[in-house]
């Protein structure tokens, strides 16, 4: 599934047109030319065209500390800093007097680099952690010697993660985990290192660059949101229709352990906010039986957002799941043990990610661990609720059918919205929503938590977030507005995005009423909106026109004085 370095290099030479451009600065203390090529090649397959500024190696501090450096001229969107454990070890050897404080000193230096970058640019920082070297000075006993390199390196990796928790724009490229998975001898070739000063082997470059590009992609809003599972021999061993409830392999039966552990993994993903769906060739009642009755099933019906079991073509069924969830095909992963089914889905829905599962179910998990499928750039408490929200959405869809007119339906929903300026509580969710929303997103501006915080403190911006509760349940924070003062008369809608879960409830009108109220209260005459088309936001092409804005030079203008509040069935909680 992953390309070789040679294939990635070929990718770069045959770059297609029209990819989204991202500026990346690559600063390393060893030779990074190959990493540069691998990053570009990997990004192309993810739909990005990386423009890379690669500093000469060993220039990390100079480039960052000198305000007139080429690095600042370049003005990167992302700064990847790759310090190697090799150089770390030689720094350690030189610091005889302060080995006990080595990790702490180093993390202070890293924090200073990060703060300097943040004071001067808007660049996100991707810092590599340190793939371990055991220099065998103490053997295992090193773990009991605080001044040993092994101890200090472990501590440094821990401190680096801790720093990333504190700093919103700092992301960790987890080279240590890559080494744990693939092994140091795979990752590092001494003969190549000696000849080139390159610490990553050619074989590991595609893996490392895949991890790094995944971080960029997820910050840019491109990541997997949904895992679709086949059942027989994928979720449990055996065939439920033939073997029956008691004989499917799960728990302690046969190779059941492999499937139980896979289910535990899937459940953990679900708790993290990944939507789980089922797509299986089965009779529906038979397919549901294990979820409802088998004592060893980890996954229950409650964990599944959409359950499709029938004898139709799987590609059609995945289309059906897609239309219920209203997310892009490129954010879906489909797991199926059957190569034939996998190929049908690949041929019909090329955007869906279909891993080539190994033949032996015992290998499924380790194989999946190697793919880093579910990279994310955010996590909020709300994520665990997502499955429930999609299930409730299916209930709403059924309720809507029973009303003859939409107004009566909307009234019956008892909708209430909590309208607030961004604050420290909403910050993670606001940032996450800007990264996740593609369809109902007028300008598709992504904000990290740091960006959100800057907006909260900005004199030139009004920020608004909306939640939505109805009689079926709480949708959480579902709409984000950022307004920018352009001049004394004009308020510009820098961001207007909504979760597609709440379409057609009058939320657009309710939001506009709120925007105009704010404009009036602060003496603005005009509210100006803009639509920047992307591959995914066709849905809101006519958004401003529909709401009564008038077109002027590619922008949409609303005169505040003439505005009549729109009829809505949503109550403002405050």
């Amino acid at each position, binding site marked *: 599934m992953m390309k070789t370095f040679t294939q990635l290099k070929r990718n770069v030479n045959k770059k297609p047109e029209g990819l989204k451009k991202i500026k990346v600065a690559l600063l390393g203390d060893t030779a990074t030319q190959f990493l540069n090529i691998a990053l570009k090649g990997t990004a192309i397959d993810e739909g990005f065209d990386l423009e890379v500024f690669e500093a000469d190696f060993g220039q990390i501090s100079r480039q960052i500390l000198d305000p007139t450096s080429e690095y600042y001229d370049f003005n990167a969107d992302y700064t990847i800093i790759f310090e190697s454990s090799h150089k770390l070890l030689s720094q350690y050897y030189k610091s005889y007097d302060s080995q006990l404080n080595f990790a702490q000193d180093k993390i202070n230096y890293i924090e200073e680099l990060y703060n300097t970058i943040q004071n001067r640019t808007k660049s996100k920082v991707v810092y590599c952690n340190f793939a371990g070297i055991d220099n065998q000075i103490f053997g295992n006993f090193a773990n009991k010697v605080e001044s040993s390199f092994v101890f200090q390196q472990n501590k440094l990796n821990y401190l680096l993660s801790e720093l990333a928790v504190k700093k919103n724009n700092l992301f960790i490229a987890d080279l240590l985990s890559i080494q744990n998975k693939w092994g140091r001898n795979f990752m590092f070739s001494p003969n190549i290192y000696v*000849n080139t000063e390159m610490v990553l082997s050619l074989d590991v470059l595609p893996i490392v660059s895949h991890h790094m590009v995944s971080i960029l992609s997820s910050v840019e809003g491109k990541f997997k949101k949904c895992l679709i599972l086949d059942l027989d021999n994928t979720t449990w061993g055996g065939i439920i229709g033939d073997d029956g409830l008691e004989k499917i392999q799960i728990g302690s039966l046969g190779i059941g352990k492999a499937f139980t552990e896979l289910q535990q993994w899937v459940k953990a993903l679900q708790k993290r906010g990944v939507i789980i769906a089922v797509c299986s060739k089965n009779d529906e009642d038979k397919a549901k039986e294990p979820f409802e009755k088998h004592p060893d099933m980890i996954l229950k019906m409650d964990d599944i957002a959409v359950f499709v079991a029938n004898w139709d073509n799987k590609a059609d069924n995945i289309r059906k799941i897609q239309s219920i969830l209203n997310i892009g095909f490129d954010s879906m992963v489909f797991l199926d043990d059957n190569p034939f089914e996998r190929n049908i889905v690949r041929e019909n829905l090329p955007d869906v990610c279909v891993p080539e599962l190994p033949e032996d179910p015992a290998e499924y998990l380790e194989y999946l661990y190697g793919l880093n499928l579910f990279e994310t750039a955010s996590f909020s408490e709300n994520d665990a609720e997502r499955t429930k929200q999609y299930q409730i959405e299916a209930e709403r869809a059924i309720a809507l059918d029973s009303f003859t007119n939409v107004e009566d339906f909307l009234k019956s929903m008892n909708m209430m919205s909590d309208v607030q300026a961004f604050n420290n509580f909403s910050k993670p969710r606001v940032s996450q929503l800007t990264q996740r929303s593609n369809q109902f997103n007028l300008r598709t501006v992504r904000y990290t938590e740091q960006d959100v915080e800057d907006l909260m403190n900005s004199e030139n911006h009004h920020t608004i977030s909306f939640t939505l509760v109805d009689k079926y349940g709480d949708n959480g924070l579902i709409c984000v507005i950022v307004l920018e003062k352009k001049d004394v008369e004009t308020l510009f809608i820098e961001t207007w995005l909504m979760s597609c879960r709440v379409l057609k409830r009058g939320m657009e009108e309710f939001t506009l009423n709120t925007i105009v109220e704010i404009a009036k209260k602060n003496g603005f005459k005009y509210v100006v909106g803009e639509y920047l088309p992307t591959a995914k936001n066709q849905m809101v092409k006519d958004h401003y026109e529909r709401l009564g804005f008038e077109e002027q030079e590619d922008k949409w203008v609303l005169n505040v004085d003439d505005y009549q509040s729109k009829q809505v069935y949503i109550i403002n909680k405050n």
Partner: protein
Amino acid sequence: MNKDEILGKLTTIFHEELDNDDIVLSFETTADDIEEWDSLSHIQLIVAVEKAFKVRFTSSEIQSWNNVGEMIDCIIAK
């Protein structure tokens, strides 16, 4: 495997790694003769040759060859 057979196998590797099927290798070919063969792609070639012939070159061997023939001698000596 004799020298000519190795040369044939090397030619395929060069085509693949340097992405140019027009490259013609002889025992006398040097890096100067092939545009795509620079110090970086040299490493790519080394790794591919190591895999194809299941050998491991020492760091000084990697630097030592003056032409393809010497590379072949080195493979045979393993």
